[in-house]
């Protein structure tokens, strides 16, 4: 009897956890992106609705935060210093993993709709998404290096904070567009959606977008890595053929 009671309690636990009874139901305009030769970035529409059993609670308004995170790679951050009259790469730190792309879109000012403890817990803002990967402190002032990483990647639009860019209708329907840049790397892009009230996360949902090279791009990439010698020879043959064709073509023209 005790066992069965515990089981029933456990079954009901999830719904008991989100006391407000609000859940995300979401969708993506596409869950795969094919990088083809004329790939010039891609716009992903992320949309959803908030499902609830009872009318929306009064008080603090509902807010939505959406993050899109590209595959992480290890990287080296180097700093140039003035050595013997010229600027050279003098010190460096290695970061075990940092996202190649990270976008945060919100329905309001991030510091108002998310408490710092919740941010830390779910690693939502960029600061936590990068700090989470733990930069090994090989050089003094690792903080300065990760700040540089954020600055460089923000400048080239790889890291973005888009406050107020999630449209929210009647605390129920939400949508946002996230433009993926043209210099995407391959891999699984993680989309996370959070709904908050009073700075506290009520529910979250996760989805994946699969980004792959396709067609010729895929064929060339695979060949370059699996048949490097043959690939090199074909590159040469291409060069030789083009060189000869131009020469022959011009001879015809001059005649």
């Amino acid at each position: 009897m005790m066992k069965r009671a515990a089981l029933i309690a456990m079954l009901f636990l999830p719904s008991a956890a989100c006391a407000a009874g609000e859940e995300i139901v979401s969708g993506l305009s596409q869950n795969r992106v094919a990088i083809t030769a004329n790939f010039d970035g891609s716009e992903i529409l992320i949309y959803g609705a908030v499902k609830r059993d009872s009318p929306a609670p009064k008080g603090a308004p509902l807010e939505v935060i959406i993050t899109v995170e590209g595959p992480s790679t290890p990287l080296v951050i180097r700093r140039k210093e003035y050595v013997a009259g010229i600027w050279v790469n003098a010190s460096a730190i290695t970061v075990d993993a940092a996202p190649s792309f990270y976008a945060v879109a919100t329905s309001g000012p991030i510091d108002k709709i998310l408490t710092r403890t919740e941010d830390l817990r779910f690693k939502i803002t960029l600061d936590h998404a990068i700090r989470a990967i733990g930069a090994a402190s090989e050089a003094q002032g690792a903080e300065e290096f990760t700040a540089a990483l954020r600055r460089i990647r923000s400048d080239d639009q790889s890291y973005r904070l888009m406050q107020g860019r999630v449209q929210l209708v009647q605390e129920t329907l939400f949508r946002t567009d996230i433009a993926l840049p043209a210099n995407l790397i391959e891999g699984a892009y993680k989309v996370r959606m959070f709904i908050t009230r009073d700075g506290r996360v009520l529910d979250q949902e996760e989805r994946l977008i699969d980004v792959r090279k396709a067609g010729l791009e895929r064929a060339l990439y695979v060949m370059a890595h699996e048949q490097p010698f043959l690939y090199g020879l074909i590159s040469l043959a291409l060069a030789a053929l083009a060189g000869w064709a131009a020469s022959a073509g011009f001879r015809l023209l001059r005649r």
Partner: protein
Amino acid sequence: MFQLYLPIAEVSVNAFLLLGIGGIVGFLSGMFGVGGGFLITPFLLFIGIPPGVAVATGANQVVASSISGVLAQLKRKAVDFRMGLVLLIGGLIGSWAGVRVFSWMTALGQVDLFVQLSYVLFLGLIGGMMFFESARAILRSRRHGGAPPIRRAHIHTWVHGLPFKMKFRASGLYISVLPPLAVGALVGFLAGIMGVGGGFILVPAMIYVLGMPTKVVIGTSLFQIIFVTGFTTVVHAVNSHTVDMMLALLLIIGGVIGAQLGTMAGTRLKAEQLRILLAAMVLAVAIKIAFDLLLQPSELFSVTPMALP
């Protein structure tokens, strides 16, 4: 519009921009008998191609423009094949060593500095020497009231006293094989580390060190560059997978057309004029890169992603 995603470089660039870069470099290449790699690598870095891909793909492009150029020179019988082969043997040894040093420097994170210093040093030295020599030649011909100075078939230097002599008929030379071998090796080494064919060093070396007549220098230089850069391309493709065929193709299409036009333009100029123009161009690139090293960069930090294991 016409953006193209490059599969190896993993960036998206404008297709016409690449055709244009290839065309300009090809034109200069055909005109001066240099591969043009010393121009194309900085160009590619400037538009955001990663250094490894720029160097390796640059080498591939140089192969094409050199073939186009050689075929144009061949019609004028301005290629010394025997000299080309001797230079080539040295070149392959040097190229292999250069690619090894390049991989090693990449691992150390100093490859940018290394490439930049090589550029400043070699381009500055060669450019400066050529500039003064050709300026003097032009002044001399002016002073003589336009009458050409008395020309010897070639200039005699210390080089002509070394053993293992060999006859190079097309160049009208009878010299030791050691200097061409050494020149070839040096050029091959540069090809490996800088992604260049080394024409800018080969052309002056053939004129001043080996004493070859200017008219066969361009064709012969291009002939040897084809093989050295071809070899470099394959070694980079195998060692570091950094040859981007899509990028190369666009540069090549621009390059081969430019090379043909450049060869036509080159035949209208006198030897001294060609040399001083080449020298000025080489010096300009050296000075630009030297400034980059000497002035404080606006961004001190750089981010280099590493491949996933």
